């Protein structure tokens, strides 16, 4: 049985861990709030962009653009958005698992990965996939400019026909407790289902072709940006939940250790009393 001193030492250690997990929980909660606001703020732009795209593709259905070209899917690119840091519960492993499941039936030689977040890089570095581009994910204040290089690289891969489709794997933010790993097809862009007739005659300035040329890359960038802000919010949510659980677990552990400690202490006292009493009896 552990000695009283050992138990006391363990309680101290657990208490220190609890302090750290609690602090991490608070930090994650504060960052979650910010990230959530950011994710919400990014939605109108992305939604509106989607709407505009829809109108445009309806009005100019015949336009040909490199980002719209459908090819047989031989090589694919996959953007994986993880986090730079761990200790976020199953956040990273969920995204990685979703990616691995998605890639299961594919020959690794036909896959190009674009990895966001150091944890994603750590995970795939040891595997047989070729990595086209990486980017670290700042824990706060992701900006549109941050994803530009990645987005440009992805578009380049697709336009040069090095890959025939691009998918995006990220964690969709539902609530602080729930994050949903999601696989999304990014390229080629599929024009909206055309059940409606062209909505009026649009005036295009400059021509439809040039407009598409300017709008489509922007659309891709927006999609990636949106996924990233969602992922960052998910990360903080997952970390907050994980750290809250860790703090509770530490409290439970302290309770049970205290109980053991008290029992041991009482046993020692009882033993001492018994010894004294029996010694006294022997003298009588």
């Amino acid at each position, binding site marked *: 049985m552990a000695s009283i001193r050992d138990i006391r030492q363990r309680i101290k250690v657990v208490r220190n861990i609890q302090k750290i997990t609690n602090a991490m929980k608070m930090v994650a909660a504060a960052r979650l709030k910010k990230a959530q606001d950011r994710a919400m703020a990014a939605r109108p732009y992305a939604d509106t962009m989607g709407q505009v795209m829809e109108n445009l593709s309806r009005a100019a259905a015949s336009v040909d653009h490199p980002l719209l070209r459908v090819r047989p899917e031989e090589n694919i690119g996959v953007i994986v958005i993880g986090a730079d840091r761990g200790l976020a519960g199953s956040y990273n492993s969920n995204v990685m698992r979703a990616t691995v499941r998605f890639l299961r039936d594919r020959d690794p030689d036909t896959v190009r990965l674009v990895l966001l977040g150091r944890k994603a890089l750590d995970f795939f570095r040891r595997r047989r996939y070729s990595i086209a581009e990486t980017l670290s994910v700042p824990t706060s204040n992701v900006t549109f400019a941050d994803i530009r290089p990645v987005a440009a690289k992805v578009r380049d891969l697709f336009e040069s026909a090095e890959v025939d489709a691009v998918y995006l794997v990220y964690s969709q933010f539902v609530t602080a407790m729930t994050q949903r790993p999601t696989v999304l097809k990014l390229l080629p862009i599929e024009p909206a289902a055309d059940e409606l007739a062209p909505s009026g005659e649009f005036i295009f300035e400059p021509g439809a072709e040039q407009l598409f040329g300017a*709008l489509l890359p922007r659309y891709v960038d927006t999609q990636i940006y949106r996924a990233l802000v969602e992922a960052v919010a998910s990360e903080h949510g997952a970390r907050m939940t994980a750290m809250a659980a860790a703090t509770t677990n530490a409290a439970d552990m302290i309770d049970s250790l205290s109980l053991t400690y008290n029992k041991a202490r009482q046993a020692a006292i009882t033993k001492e009393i018994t010894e004294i009493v029996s010694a006294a009896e022997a003298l009588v």
Partner: protein
Amino acid sequence: MPGKTFHLEIVTPDRVVLSDDRVASVIVPGSQGYLGVLAGHAPLLAELKVGQIDIRREDNSELAMATSGGFIEVSENKAIILADTAEIALEIDVSRAEDAKTRAEDRLRRRGEAETDAARADAALTRALNRLHVAEHAQG
């Protein structure tokens, strides 16, 4: 006959800058030249370049903004501006724009670098000058 006002929305990747349904007119920097939009405008989709957005409301109050490009869509008496950035003239950070201008000018002076760098510096300079111009116009 459609009303004399229309709904205008200006959104950037970070936020909704403006959402107003009593706008009388808006003038935007189209890639081929400035465009004016009034109520009942025909459906339009245009690319925007760096420049100034001028909004006039129903009550004749005016609002100027600096933008660094984007798109405008007009349909069904509603105008949506998808801007890369959009700042209300009175809120422009003049000292930051001055800094950006100096930086861009410096970079342009030290030529001999890759051409893309020069192009980027040039674009940065255009944006900075635009911000300063719009701010000056509104404040001065």
